[in-house]
């Protein structure tokens, strides 16, 4: 690992991060709006598309990180923990308990020898 490699990774990651807000600002400007009312300046269809895209990515991230590990099946303990969290969150249990329950179920199952 070299400092150069690290800085390339940092710069590239920041580039991805800053590109979204800048691109959105550019879209607003292009429509002749100075940005004072940025959110309402874009067509609702487009803002809906962008926010749905973020939700789709988050759900895909949840699915892949809870069901797969290193390209294979993640075992039982991890998905069981996340599934417990899903049920609790759906039943409107406060966030902090949902997270603790997920970790607790996964840790408990692993302590019992479940993969």
């Amino acid at each position, binding site marked *: 690992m070299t400092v150069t490699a690290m800085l390339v990774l940092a710069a590239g990651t920041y580039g991805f991060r800053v590109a979204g807000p800048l691109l959105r600002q550019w879209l607003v400007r292009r429509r002749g709006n100075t940005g004072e009312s940025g959110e309402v300046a874009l067509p609702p269809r487009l803002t809906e598309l962008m926010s749905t895209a973020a939700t789709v*990515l988050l759900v895909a991230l949840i699915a892949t990180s809870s069901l797969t590990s290193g390209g294979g099946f993640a075992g039982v303990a991890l998905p069981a923990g996340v599934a417990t969290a899903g049920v609790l969150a759906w039943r409107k249990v406060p966030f902090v308990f949902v997270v603790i329950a997920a970790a607790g179920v996964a840790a408990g199952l692993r302590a019992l020898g479940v993969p």
Partner: protein
Amino acid sequence: MRSIWRTLTPPLRRDLLALSGAILVVGTSFGTIAVAAGLPWWMASLMSVVVFAGGSQFMVVGVVAAGGGLVTAVLGALLLNARHLPFGLAIGPVLGRTWPARLLGSHLLIDESVAFAMAQSEPRRARAVYWAAGLALFVSWNIGCVAGAMAGQVIGDPDALGLDAAFPAALLALVLPALRETRVRRASLLGAGVALAATPFLPPGVPVLLALVGLVMLVPTPTGRDRAEAAT
């Protein structure tokens, strides 16, 4: 700063504290693994400040430790971070309207700060929550990394503590209300299915990006009324 804190309700402060605690432990584990892989402690710590993307950091260190090439490692890690672009597109105005806010706020863009901000219905609250979550997680991630890198031994295995389940669980709890809308739910389910099916075959990061094909569910289908109009 103070106005951000005042906008946060006590339950939100508690939620952020819980997630910060979990990130602190994972950060500690990153610090120890990076040092074990041969990185000097200052480099492991600096990487967490300038990259601030846990998944990609574990990935580069893992590839390098396994004897893989540096270019492959960095390109793979960047691929994993490409999802930040569409995230930024969705939450752009949340960062703030000034240039310093946009440029600095962009660095705090991670899955959790995006999910926290998107779970708020009121824009003012969303902005406060985004900054609070981003700053809290940035600080705890970096404290954890320095502690782990200095300690030089694994203090606790995050997986044994079930923390690998805590992060998807937190995101799930935050994203669930948005899934009440039928179109969003259909797009998300299709996307997740595509990502899962692609995971065994494609490098990490790409399957999640492929999930965006789920957005075809947003294409309007002819409704009953449209068809009735077309018939007249």
